[in-house]
């Protein structure tokens, strides 16, 4: 797992809220992609309900993942590809390093891949003395800046054109410009040299096709095609769930993926890659490797309550509508998997207690589910995680997050189930509040531990007579 900073969730969120450049970038992103995606779903010939069908396809695939994966790898091997099953991040990284070393690779190029962020591939390559270049423009920018992606599809959304201009002037030694086309051209030139010199290209996989034996990559820039065509070796890394059984499933999944990710009918480049170059072919890699990664996914698979999260195809549509992501940005989540998807995936992959702020920080508003191309019930999953935190769960090694909270709620549930006790506390509160400062009819201040509530707003006082009392006395005006 790459470096995780989720302990700073609250501090990072505060920083993000006080960063006006980030706030306007996030608002702009959500305005365009959030709305664009909703419109794109409505404009589907089948309408937005196609997402329900996609949910069924994903469900059927995941329920038969063993058979689907066996078919996928048998077909890939038939086409001359090599397959490795990695139980965890370390095994995946070791395989990638061994492959690179076998070919004496000095320079590696990478297409944007969330799973490679998950396994921390870059730092491992650098540690082994192999230069690695991110080739998606957004990823390239943040790699030069020594930062991490703040959005799955738009990794450098937090950087202004001035930031990028200064960065390029400093790191790739071009005269300062903040003109987006000039900056893009400068990166195009610098990266072209890398593509042509690299000995190995790494990519992710958006959604493989088992029956034909192909992985599929989607990009708008063409960097993934470059990374998978020009170097001698191509290594694709995929989470074990990123596969469909049938080619006709792709008809639905690809269209929804492109709409979810960027409100597009189709990404500029979609490549089905099924093996290395054949003998008589002119170009393409000599070797094709597919690394299939578990890294905690089989544990999610084993729990029927959370299995649905494996339907996710990492399009980032949920980030583009989430009111929480839209304010605190991707860095607060402490890991490249951010937004609602990160708030479910990270606790499940890397520890519920450790990532508790993520699933407790979301609002349960349900916008993520409406935006999800495969209609994952993210609010349900967030609630299930919170239930684990409230009660603890040995199977997931979750310890109770707050004993006080549990105590308070146990007490509360006991009180509200006992009418007389409840009335007693109501009357006590009605009496007690007369000593509190007021603003017109509202209470301005509550004593600790409730003082947090009135820090920024007033609260309605408890009525002098409860509804039940008024009902009984016939005083219903």
């Amino acid at each position, binding site marked *: 797992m790459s470096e995780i900073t989720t302990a700073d969730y609250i501090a990072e969120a505060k920083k993000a809220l006080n960063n006006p450049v980030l706030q306007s*970038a996030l608002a702009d*992103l959500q305005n*365009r992609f959030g709305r664009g995606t909703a419109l794109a779903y409505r404009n589907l010939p089948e309408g937005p309900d196609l997402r329900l069908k996609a949910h069924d396809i994903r469900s059927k695939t995941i*329920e*038969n993942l*063993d*058979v689907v*994966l*066996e*078919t996928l*790898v048998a077909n890939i091997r038939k*086409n001359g590809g*090599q*397959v490795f*099953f990695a*139980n965890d991040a370390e095994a995946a990284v070791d395989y990638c390093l061994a492959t690179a070393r076998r070919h004496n690779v000095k320079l590696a190029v990478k297409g944007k891949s969330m799973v490679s962020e998950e396994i921390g591939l870059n730092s491992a390559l650098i540690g082994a003395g192999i230069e690695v270049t991110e080739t*998606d*423009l957004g990823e390239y*920018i943040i790699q030069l800046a020594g930062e991490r992606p703040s959005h799955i599809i738009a990794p*450098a959304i937090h950087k202004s*054109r001035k930031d990028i201009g200064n960065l390029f002037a400093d790191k790739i030694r071009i005269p300062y410009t903040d003109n*987006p086309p000039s*900056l*893009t051209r400068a*990166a*195009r030139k610098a*990266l*072209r040299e890398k593509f042509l010199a690299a000995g190995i290209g790494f990519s992710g996989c958006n959604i493989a096709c088992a*029956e034909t034996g*192909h992985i599929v990559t989607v990009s*708008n*820039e*063409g*960097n993934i*095609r*470059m990374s998978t*065509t*020009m170097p001698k070796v191509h290594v694709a890394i995929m989470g074990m769930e990123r596969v469909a*059984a049938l*080619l*006709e499933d792709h*008809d639905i999944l*690809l269209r929804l993926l492109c709409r979810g990710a960027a409100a597009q009918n*189709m990404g*500029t*480049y*979609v*490549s*089905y890659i*099924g093996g*290395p*170059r*054949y*003998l008589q*072919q*002119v*170009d*393409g890699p000599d070797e094709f490797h597919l690394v299939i990664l578990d890294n905690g996914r089989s544990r999610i*698979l*084993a729990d029927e309550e959370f299995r649905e999260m494996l339907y996710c195809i990492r399009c980032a549509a949920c980030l583009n509508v989430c009111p929480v992501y839209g304010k605190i940005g991707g860095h607060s989540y402490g890991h490249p998997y951010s937004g609602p998807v990160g708030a479910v995936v990270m606790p499940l992959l890397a520890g519920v207690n450790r990532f508790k702020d993520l699933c407790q920080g979301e609002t349960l508003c349900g916008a993520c589910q409406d935006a999800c191309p495969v209609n994952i019930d993210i609010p349900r999953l967030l609630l299930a995680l919170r239930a684990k935190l409230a009660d603890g769960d040995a199977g997931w090694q979750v310890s109770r997050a707050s004993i006080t909270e549990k105590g308070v709620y146990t007490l509360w549930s006991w009180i509200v189930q006992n009418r007389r006790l409840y009335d007693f506390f109501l009357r006590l509160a009605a009496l007690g509040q007369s000593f509190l400062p007021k603003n017109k009819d509202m209470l301005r201040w509550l004593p600790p531990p409730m003082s947090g509530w009135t820090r920024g707003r007033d609260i309605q006082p408890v009525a002098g007579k409860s509804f039940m009392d008024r009902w009984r006395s016939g005083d219903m005006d």
Partner: protein
Amino acid sequence: MDTSNQAAFISRIRSALGHTPDRQRPANGLFSGRSASEIGRILERIKNRTDTEKKQLLGRLIEMAEPINLNVIVLKDPPSVAAAIADLIRDKDSEWGSQKSVAAWKHPMIESLDLPAALADQNVPVHITELKENDTAETSREKERKRVRKHVVDSYIGVTSADYCMAETASLVIRTRPGQARSVSLVPSIHIAVIHADQIIADLKELYALIQWDPEASAEGLTNCMTFISGPSKTADVEATMVHGAHGPREVYVYVMTD
């Protein structure tokens, strides 16, 4: 010996799903998709398109190409396409060096354009991305590949054909064959694709039906690399401003021949 760790990995998935870990499960209809009659209907529809329907499809392609900045140009025959390409090459400057050169697939449709003749007066060489097989030793093949690669990298325009063009998404569909380098549609600054109007199909559904079930098209299957190209390379990574030509071609032209 299984060095891929497959057996242990798949066993873990089986037990996560509640099945016996070490017993292989049957596919149980998992890989049976559309019915034969539905596939038949799709293939029939493609084969029996009337001229009006074909015209509508071309119209739809042009409509869908516009917002993604894909240039679709409809012309009659190879000589008119060759002349149009010659004009384009006259107009466009090369991006990386001063010498203009073209890389092109070995393909009957491109041969019919006779590009070397059309470009002779501009002194623009046309390099065909074909391995000349003097002998079949891998070392000499490797030399040939290097030669072709250099030509493609040095070219500012790449000329390809395509297997199909999907109207609904304005996507060229390209499969990989000897003589038809993948890099020609990727590395040069400008990509030109020459197709015939009959190669236009509606959408993904038709494409998948053809390459899986049409007797002719399915013989090759998807090949080891099938690519959809929907417009020029683009990025919006600097303050969400759209810029063309991130890594792939900055302009794409599709010439559709109707004769």
